[in-house]
Every structure is written in structure tokens, then in C-alpha cells.
């Protein structure tokens, strides 16, 4: 009976893939999986041909999609067939959809390897049906407070999915995810050495760090490679300072686009440190899963992320440098602010701050405004600040006022529709313009009538 149900689920969902391709090509990253799981709740478990030793999940707050895309590319450029959810549909339905598309009518997947991005909260449920033996944990940071509350909730959810059969690739530079290695059968650590783009946060009276995952005393970062990620130690219990990472980025040449690890040079087609963690975690996972360093190096050489986070756009006669945030949390906002601050010219800064909607209803979330530090942007030269938001634009203006910026040089507009932005920019001096905003908001080029 269960196999009949499985085949009905498989064939109906495959039919839905065909229909979606005809009527809405490019969509349908979840729907076929939803159909299949509605008919057979254990659909993913019933799929055939998946070797858990050749299956890897990627989870964490930031960096999942890039890591999955890079790992997928490294395997495929080595001639391996890989089933992956590259479009970021990371719940059980998205995983099921990727498997449906990769399988034949018998329900056996064609690929040798499975690489899946997995939502932190649903990892346990996904792994129950698809017991991958490898898990890359990128980082655990404050994110989606409306549904996660605090990072400890995410740590707990991930821990529930760990077990003795699992190798966890943990970020040794990120205190919360590094601690999770203790709950896995085997932990492989990765890290990035302090480099030319590392920075030290201002140690002023209002600086705060985070509590140690073991003893809850304050963590000390020797440097930040990206926001709240870098070599750290707990001075109280020694956590974080115990050992050298299993995989380490030793040196980085941002201009030459290379990094070295264990004496070997690898190509790195980016100029921001954020991506180094994706690379070193993929190097660790691919090598542990049997790929040679030559194969991995070849994959790195030919990888480019087509969905880059930086773009330019011409608007109101000014060139707008757009820094896209895939999600809005203190770390992504601060990383974006740091990028803006790299330009030392007097500038116009546009900041899109949406109401938060992780769950219905949306709310006027201003929590991150005092988690981040706007002073690097102010000091780098700020001529005018434009905040774009329906309900919390003025709250952002208040935040800037607290950092000493003159309210006369601030404009608040209700949305980031192109004509609103153009209207705000038009009377301003001709200065470089930077826009920091979450991706989905900016997708609306025209006002809806």
C-alpha cells in the first residue's frame, strides 16, 4: 500500500512539474514536493538511490545559498552528478521537489550526490526522511526574531537534528555554531585567519559582544573577518582558543583573487571576506567526501555567483550603488554599512528598512537599529541620509540622530519605489549614492495602482 501511495505521489508530482513548466516556467520550486508529501507524507524517505555518505546538508543563518551553489559547482565540474535545491527552497517540500526533478518514473534519483540547503528550523524533519551524513553549519546569528526569538532557539533546533552518524562541518570563528560540533558524531572545523580586510570593532563604552556558549561570560574577538565572525576566545573558560581549525584560510590576496589553505593556492572570484567562509567550508566538505585538491581547485576557478550582492543603477542622473541584503539582520546590515564606509568620499546613503514579516502580521521592528553601528558610515563622509520605510523610517532617523547626524540632512520617504527614490535624490547634491536594502523590497520598480 505504501509503495502504491509513493508511486501515485511521484507520478502526480511529476505531472505537476510538467504543468508548472508550461504555465509558469521558473516557478514550482515547492509545489511538486507539496503535492507529493500530501499524498505520501514519507515521500522523501521512500525515494531510492540516495547514499547518505554522499548527501550533504547546508544550514545556518547567512551564506547557505552561496555555499550550496559552490559545493554543487565543485562536484559537477569534477564530473559528478548532483541533485540540489539551488533555488533556495529549503523546507522539506523544496527538498522533495529537487528529488522529484532528479528522479525517473521508478523514484530512483539519477545523481550520485545530494546537496541540499536546509532551513535551520526544519533540519530535524528533513533529516528524519533523508539521513544525510554530512552537515555544513555556516553560522548562527540573530535573525528572524519574530519566529526565532533568540539564536539559542536555532542552536537547539539544529542540535535536535545532530547524531552520532553525522559529520558536522562547523565554523570555528563563530561561537554558536562551533559549539554544535560537540553534539555531532564527528566535527570538522573550518576558519579564516585574520587578513587585510579583518577589522577590530571600536571598543567604546557602548560596545557589546555575545555570551560564551559554554559559560555565558563575554566572548572576546581578536578580530572580525565579517561581523561577529572571526578568531575568538572566552577569557573565562578558554572556549574557542583550544586548537587549530582542521581547514584554515591562511592567506588572502583580495586583489589577486586567491587564498591559500595548507600551502595550496586557490582561486577566489570575489573581493569580500564574506565568501571566504563559503569557500573554506566547501573545501572541507568536498575533500572529506573524497574529491581531490585538484578537482576542488578546478571548481573554484570556474565558479562565479551570478546573483551578486552588488549592483549599480542610474537614477535621477546619479549612479546608485546598490548593496543587496538577502535577509535583514544585524550582521547583514553591519556588513553592508561597512561596505558603504569603505568609500571615503562624501556620499548620500539610502537605507531601506521594511516592516518585519516572518510570520503574519508584520510588525514595526526597530530592534536591529541599535545592534548595528552607523558611525563608520558617518565618519567615512555622509552628506545626506534617506530612509525608505512605511512605518519605521523616522525611527531610523532617530537612530542617526543618536549618532550625532543632523536631522536637517535626513529625508524619510514611505517606500523605495523608483519614483520616490528619484524624487528624494533629485534636489540633493551630486554625490556618490549608496543604497542598502533587503532584496525583495527593491523588486518593485513601479508603484502598484
Amino acid at each position, binding site marked *: 500500500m505504501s509503495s502504491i501511495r509513493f508511486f501515485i505521489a511521484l507520478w502526480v508530482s511529476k505531472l505537476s512539474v510538467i504543468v508548472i513548466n508550461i504555465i509558469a516556467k521558473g516557478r514550482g520550486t515547492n509545489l511538486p514536493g507539496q503535492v507529493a508529501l500530501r499524498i505520501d507524507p514519507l515521500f522523501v524517505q521512500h525515494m531510492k538511490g540516495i547514499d547518505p555518505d554522499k548527501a550533504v546538508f547546508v544550514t545556518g543563518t547567512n551564506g547557505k545559498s552561496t555555499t550550496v551553489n559552490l559545493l554543487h559547482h565543485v562536484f559537477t565540474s569534477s564530473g559528478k552528478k548532483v541533485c540540489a535545491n539551488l533555488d533556495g527552497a529549503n523546507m522539506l517540500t523544496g527538498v522533495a521537489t529537487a528529488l522529484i526533478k532528479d528522479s525517473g518514473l521508478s523514484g530512483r534519483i539519477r545523481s550520485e550526490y545530494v546537496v541540499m540547503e536546509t532551513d535551520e528550523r526544519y533540519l530535524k524533519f528533513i533529516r528524519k526522511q533523508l539521513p544525510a551524513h554530512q552537515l555544513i553549519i555556516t553560522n548562527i546569528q540573530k535573525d528572524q526574531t519574530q519566529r526565532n526569538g533568540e539564536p539559542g532557539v536555532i542552536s537547539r533546533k539544529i542540535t535536535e537534528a545532530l547524531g552520532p552518524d553525522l559529520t558536522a562541518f562547523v565554523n570555528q570563528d563563530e561561537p554558536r555554531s562551533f559549539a554544535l560540533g560537540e553534539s555531532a558524531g564527528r566535527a570538522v572545523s573550518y576558519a579564516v585567519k585574520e587578513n587585510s580586510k579583518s577589522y577590530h570593532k571600536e571598543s567604546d563604552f557602548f560596545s557589546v559582544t555575545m555570551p560564551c556558549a559554554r559559560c555565558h*561570560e563575554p566572548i572576546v574577538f581578536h578580530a572580525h573577518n565579517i561581523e561577529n565572525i572571526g578568531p575568538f576566545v572566552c577569557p573565562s573558560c578558554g572556549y574557542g582558543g583550544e586548537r587549530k581549525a582542521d581547514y584554515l584560510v591562511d592567506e588572502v590576496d583580495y586583489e589577486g583573487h586567491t587564498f591559500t589553505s595548507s600551502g595550496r593556492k586557490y582561486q577566489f572570484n570575489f573581493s569580500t571576506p564574506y565568501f571566504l567562509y563559503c569557500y573554506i567550508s566547501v573545501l572541507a566538505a568536498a575533500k572529506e567526501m573524497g574529491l581531490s585538491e585538484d578537482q576542488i581547485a578546478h571548481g573554484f576557478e570556474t565558479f562565479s555567483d551570478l546573483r551578486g550582492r552588488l549592483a549599480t543603477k542610474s537614477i535621477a542622473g546619479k549612479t546608485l550603488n546598490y548593496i543587496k541584503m538577502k535577509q535583514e539582520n544585524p550582521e547583514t546590515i553591519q556588513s553592508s554599512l561597512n561596505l558603504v564606509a569603505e568609500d571615503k568620499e562624501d556620499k548620500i546613503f539610502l537605507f531601506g528598512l521594511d516592516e518585519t514579516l516572518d510570520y503574519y*502580521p508584520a510588525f514595526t521592528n526597530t530592534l536591529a537599529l541599535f545592534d548595528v553601528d552607523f558611525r563608520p558610515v558617518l565618519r567615512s563622509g555622509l552628506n545626506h541620509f534617506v530612509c525608505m520605510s512605511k*512605518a519605521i523610517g523616522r525611527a531610523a*532617523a532617530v537612530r542617526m540622530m543618536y549618532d550625532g547626524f543632523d536631522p536637517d540632512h535626513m529625508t524619510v520617504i514611505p517606500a523605495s519605489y523608483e519614483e520616490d527614490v528619484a524624487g528624494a535624490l533629485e534636489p540633493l547634491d551630486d554625490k556618490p549614492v549608496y543604497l542598502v536594502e533587503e532584496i525583495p523590497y527593491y523588486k518593485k520598480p513601479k508603484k502598484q495602482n
Partner: protein
Amino acid sequence: MTDDRINIAWMYPDTLYLHGERGNIMALVRYTMELGLTPHVRRIDLGTEDFDPFDYDILFYGPGEISSFRSVIDDISGYKHSLAEYISSGRILIAVGTTVALFGEKIVRWAPENDKNDVIDGLCIINTEAYERELVYGNDLDIRAEYGGYSMELIGSQIQMADYGFTENDQFKRFGSVIYGRGNNGSDGIEGAVHVNSIFTNMLGPVLVNNPWLTVRIIRTAAEVKGLEISKRDPEFTLERKSMKLKKQFIESKMNS
């Protein structure tokens, strides 16, 4: 020498650190100065040995992760009795978010059905028990609060990890009545608690930045308890009032939908 200082203790800033609460300390500093007094802030960490609550006029406890609570309770236990006296004397303690639960009788952690709940013993300073929720509740919180003899509307965020309730009596009064949002538990319309002049509230994040009319009430109350006179009038709060208006419109659109 006349002491015009308002002494503020920022309690466990790196452990109770969750939602940008340093903004509240900045607000206390800003408005203490605007009212013509001198703010003096000290950070108190776990294990700070010479901490005595009576050296301060305002103690601020931000929200932290429940996993840190045992360490914090252990530390507070060292000065628990003087803390209770401090509150009774009319000096001000502010606790926000889940940290309110520390001051209750116990915190019962959520566990799957049939699993045993972990119970953390609280400080028993307020008469409540907190129960961790299975699902986080996050939303706006709009309340009518009574504090320092004034009635005022406050808007902020609520990220509710644990629900609690308490019985109002002569000693413990509600901090506010819920206009929109959940409050203590979503059922009795009560938000937070006030014990003498101390505030226990679910409203978190930069509450004192966004609601500076509360901030000046707190500072004026602290000054009065200390015997300091404030001759200056309250600031205008022009930008903050405009900010609140936008949020209020957003909340009303939710109430009407």
C-alpha cells in the same frame, strides 16, 4: 559639592544583549543630560565583586537568552536581598523581555510532550511563574501605561519567549493595559508589572529611545527618590513623536484589517 549625578548600572551588557538594548542606556544618558543632571553609567558583568545596588539610582537589565539565565541568577543571588530592599526603597530597576522571568518564582522551559520540563528557580522578587512558549510570539505592542503619576501611550516590540501572569495587589500593579499586542499572556490585557517604582515589561528593543516621554519620567522619579531637583522642562521629542505616529498608523491598519 552638590551631587547632581544619576547613577545607572547597565547590568550584564554582554550576556543580556539580545535586541540592541544599549540604545536604552544611550537614551537614559541623553535625557539625564537634557534635564540638567549628570549621568554616570557603569557596566556590571557576571562576577563584578564590588557591586552594591544602593550605589545606583537606576538598574537596567536587558533581555537575554534563556540558556544564560542560570548564570545570571547565580550572580544576582549574591546580592538578592539588597536588590529586594533596593526595589522596596523606591529606587528603579528596569527589566525587559524574557529577563522579567528571572525575577519571578520559576521559569518552566518548554519540552516536547512526554519529556520532562527543565525548571529554573527564579529570584522570587515578583509573584509570577513564567512558562516558555513552544512558538515565539513576535509583534508590535501598544499600551497605555501609568508611571510616575502620569498616563502615557507607549509603542514597542514584543518578542515573547515565555508567558506569565500575576495578580494585581497593593504591591504589584500593571505597568500598562494592552491596546494592541499580547502583553503578559494574551488573555488578561495586562502588560508587565510595576513594583514601587521598578518596571518589569515585555516591551523590548530601544524602548526608551522610541518612547522618551517614559524615559524622562523614569529619570524624574529617580531624581525625586534621590532628592534632586529638576528645574528644566521636558524636551519636545519632535522626531520621536513623528516616528510614533507612523507606527501608530501601521498598528491601526492592522487593527482595522
